[in-house]
C-alpha cells in the first residue's frame, strides 16, 4: 500500500488549477484548428482564429484563457494500492484549489451563500471522490464556466423513448443555448442512472478527448449522428453563423431503472478546460 499525504494532494490540485486554466486542451485546440479550416462562414472563421490566438497568448503569458475560471469540479479516483487513511482528501483538494487560483491570479467567482451572495472567494469547489479498480491516486480538475453551465438540461424521459427522442432532446438543449454560451460547444451527455447521476455523467463525459467516440457502438453512432445534426443548426462560432456549432458530443451511459430514462445535457463552451494527474 502506498501512503498518500495531504500535502501531495494539495500541490497536485494547485498545479492542475494553474494548468487547466491557461493551457487549452490539445484535443480542443486541434478541433478548433480543424474547424477553422472547414468553416464556410467568414465571421465564424474569424472567431475560430481569434480563439487559437487567444490560446497562444494565454499559454505564453500564463494568463487565464477565459475570465470565467469557473466553478472547479474535481474528480478524485482512489485505486486499491493507495492508503488514504487519516487523510482529509476533500479539505486538501479545497486548499489546493485556493492556492492555485490565488497564485495564477485567477478569478474569485464563488459566493459562499447562494441566496445572500456577498463578496466572492476562490472556493469551495465541488469534489467527487470514488474508489476505483485502476491503480494510483488520480485527480482531475475541470473549471466549469457558468455561461454554459447555466444551459444544462435534465429530462426524465419515458423508458420507451427511442434514439430519436433522446437526440431530439439533446438537439433542443443546444438550440436553446443558441449563441449565448460561447459556441462551438462540446456537448456532454449522461444517459441512465438516477437524475443526479445522469448530471454527473454528463459532466464527466466532457473529460473524454473529444476526438474519441464512445466504446459502446450504438452510443458512438448516436454521438456521430448528433455531431452531424448539431452542425446543421447554423448557430456557428459565437452564434454568428456557420457550420461549426459543436466540436464534439461525448455521451456516457449507465444502467438505470425499468421505469425511467434520465438524460442530462451539460454543455461546455469552446474553452473546455480540464487537467489531470496520477499521483
Amino acid at each position, binding site marked *: 500500500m502506498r501512503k498518500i499525504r495531504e500535502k501531495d494532494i494539495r500541490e497536485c490540485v494547485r498545479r492542475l488549477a494553474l494548468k487547466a486554466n491557461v493551457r487549452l486542451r490539445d484535443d480542443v485546440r486541434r478541433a478548433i484548428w480543424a474547424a477553422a479550416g472547414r468553416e464556410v462562414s467568414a*465571421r465564424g472563421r474569424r*472567431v475560430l482564429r*481569434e*480563439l487559437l*490566438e*487567444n*490560446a497562444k*497568448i*494565454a499559454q505564453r*503569458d500564463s*494568463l*487565464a*484563457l*477565459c*475570465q*470565467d*475560471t469557473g466553478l472547479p469540479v474535481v474528480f478524485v479516483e482512489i485505486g486499491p494500492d493507495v492508503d488514504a487513511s487519516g487523510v482529509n482528501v476533500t479539505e486538501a483538494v479545497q486548499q489546493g484549489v485556493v492556492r492555485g487560483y490565488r497564485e495564477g*491570479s*485567477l*478569478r*474569485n*467567482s464563488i459566493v459562499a451563500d447562494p441566496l445572500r*451572495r456577498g*463578496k*466572492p472567494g476562490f472556493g469551495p469547489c465541488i469534489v467527487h471522490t470514488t474508489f476505483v479498480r485502476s491503480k494510483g491516486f488520480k485527480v482531475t480538475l475541470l473549471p466549469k*464556466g457558468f*455561461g454554459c453551465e*447555466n444551459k444544462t438540461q435534465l429530462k426524465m424521459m419515458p423508458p420507451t423513448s427511442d434514439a430519436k427522442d433522446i437526440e431530439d432532446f439533446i438537439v433542443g438543449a443546444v438550440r*436553446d443555448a*443558441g*449563441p*449565448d*454560451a*460561447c459556441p462551438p460547444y462540446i456537448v456532454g451527455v449522461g444517459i441512465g442512472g438516477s437524475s443526479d447521476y445522469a448530471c454527473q455523467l454528463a459532466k464527466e463525459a466532457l473529460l473524454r478527448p473529444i476526438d474519441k467516440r464512445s466504446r459502446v457502438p450504438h452510443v458512438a453512432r448516436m454521438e456521430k449522428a448528433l455531431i452531424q445534426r448539431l452542425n446543421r443548426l447554423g*448557430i456557428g462560432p*459565437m*452564434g*454568428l453563423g456557420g457550420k461549426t456549432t459543436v466540436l464534439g458530443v461525448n455521451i456516457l451511459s449507465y444502467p438505470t431503472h425499468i421505469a425511467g430514462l434520465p438524460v442530462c445535457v451539460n454543455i461546455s*463552451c*469552446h*474553452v473546455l478546460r480540464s487537467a489531470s494527474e496520477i499521483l
Partner: protein
Amino acid sequence: MIRLSTPLDPSVLKSLRVGDEVLLSGKVLTARDQAHKRIVAALKKGARLPVDIKGCVIYYCGPTKTRPGSAIGSCGPTTAGRMDKMTVPLLKAGLKGMIGKGRRSPEVRQAIRKYRAVYFLATGGAGALLSKKVRSARLVCYADLGPEAVVELTVKDFPLVVGIDAEGRDVFAHQERKR
C-alpha cells in the same frame, strides 16, 4: 473595419449597421449582474448613482485578478441576456452602448431602438487576447463585489461586432430565445 472612440456620438450611433466590425477605443465601464442590480435599485429610488452612466458604454465583464505590471487580467464578455431585465432603466438613464455576448430580449432590442443606442458583441472565451487591448483600469465603485465591481477600462482597438444597431436590427433575429 470601423474605428470608433468613446463617447459615442449620435451621428456615429446612427451610422452603425448590424454586423459591422468595429475597433473601439476610449473608456468603458465594467458592470454585470450585481452592479446592475444596485444601479437599477438606485435609479428606482431616485438616489444619486456612484457612477455616471449617461453617454457611457457598459462592458458585461468580470475580469480575473490583475497581476503586478499588467493593466488587467483576462477580460472577455459574459452572457448579456442575464442583464436584460435590468437594462431598460439604464438605457432610459442615458446608457449608449453595451458590450457582451449572446442574445437580448425583445424589450431590450426595442429600448435600444427607442433610445438610439448600440449592443456590441465581443468574442467570448478570448479573455487573454482581449486583455491585450486594455491600456489601464481604474476602480469606480462597488469594490465589495470583487470581480463584479465597476471598473473603468481604457481600451485601444477593442474588437467588436455590432449585435443590435440603433434601428433595432439584431444579428441574432433568426435565433429567438425561448422565454
